């Protein structure tokens, strides 16, 4: 993973448009957040291998970045993205790593389903 280069990410987002793709979307404070700080309201959401097709997608912001994908009848978006990379199958991996080095958000797009 390396710090996001928006042009490269945008190019990849474009290449996955208008076809069936699998996405992984996750956001989390960690399962221990409320244990270490009982006043902390912990929340998260996770979807893995959802099959979608988007008309277009966009990366915006000055960093951390936001990515939105426009579906025929809906949307997918993520915010707080800092890093990008590609896996061995050419899937786009976007992640938001906090100042503490912990993953806070992930959005991944691929033509093949993710493992596990």
């Amino acid at each position: 993973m390396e710090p996001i280069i928006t042009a490269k990410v945008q190019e990849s987002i474009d290449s996955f448009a208008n076809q069936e793709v699998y996405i992984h979307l996750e956001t989390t404070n960690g399962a221990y957040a409320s244990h270490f700080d009982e006043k902390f309201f912990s929340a998260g959401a996770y979807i893995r291998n959802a099959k979608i097709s988007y008309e277009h997608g966009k990366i915006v912001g000055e960093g951390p970045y936001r990515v939105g994908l426009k579906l025929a009848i809906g949307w997918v978006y993520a915010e707080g993205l800092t890093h990008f990379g590609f896996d061995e199958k050419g899937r786009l991996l976007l992640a938001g790593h906090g100042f503490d080095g912990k993953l806070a958000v992930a959005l991944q797009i691929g033509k093949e389903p993710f493992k596990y």
Partner: protein
Amino acid sequence: MLTEIEKEEQVLVIFPHPDDEAFGVSGTIATHRKRGTPVTYACLTLGEMGRNLGNPPFATRESLPEIRKAELKNAAEALDIQDLRMMGLRDKTLEFEDDCKMADLVSNLLAELKPSLVISFYPGFAVHPDHEATARAVVRAVRRLPEGERPKLHLVAFANNTDTDLGAPDLVYDISDVFEQKMAALRAHISQTAWMLKEMEKLLHQKDETTVQRIMFERFWNYRWDDDKVSEL
């Protein structure tokens, strides 16, 4: 109040995440292994959802499972665990699995291994949803056995309300004999423990009492069968 670790026939350790064994019970495991007692460690997931990926990141959501699998094997080696089983479930999903299947998974292990001691988490005092789901499955599986045939159940509790609601641990083991092995197990899970270890080693060096207590002593609670709060399925 210190307790001696009893000699066992067969120990079965069940936790959901690689590294769960290292923090709370690795000294106990190492002690059993030193005596030649067979120890099976069933680790239900690969901690696929671990959040320590670094910044700059050293791993991705997709590469983490393989990293943690290798770390788990190294930790098992550090503790001389001969029978490590990776059960193939997915991190953070255990409470959503079919509860019957979860209990069956444990029942099958009990039937095969006939452990004299099972080590896991204490339901209701285990903080992480995967810990709680594991703890419930263990209690349900053991509860299926006739009372006389049940293995001992030594459980780890660390919720903030443990002292007030569960009381003091029933068993406190001094594991300083196998301290180095415990540290080796913690180091094996370096992707998840790097920062914590740095801080911990500093505090140990300063002989910080809380840290020494936390590392050198391992605490277990017997399951309170007379106050069994795990629901029937």
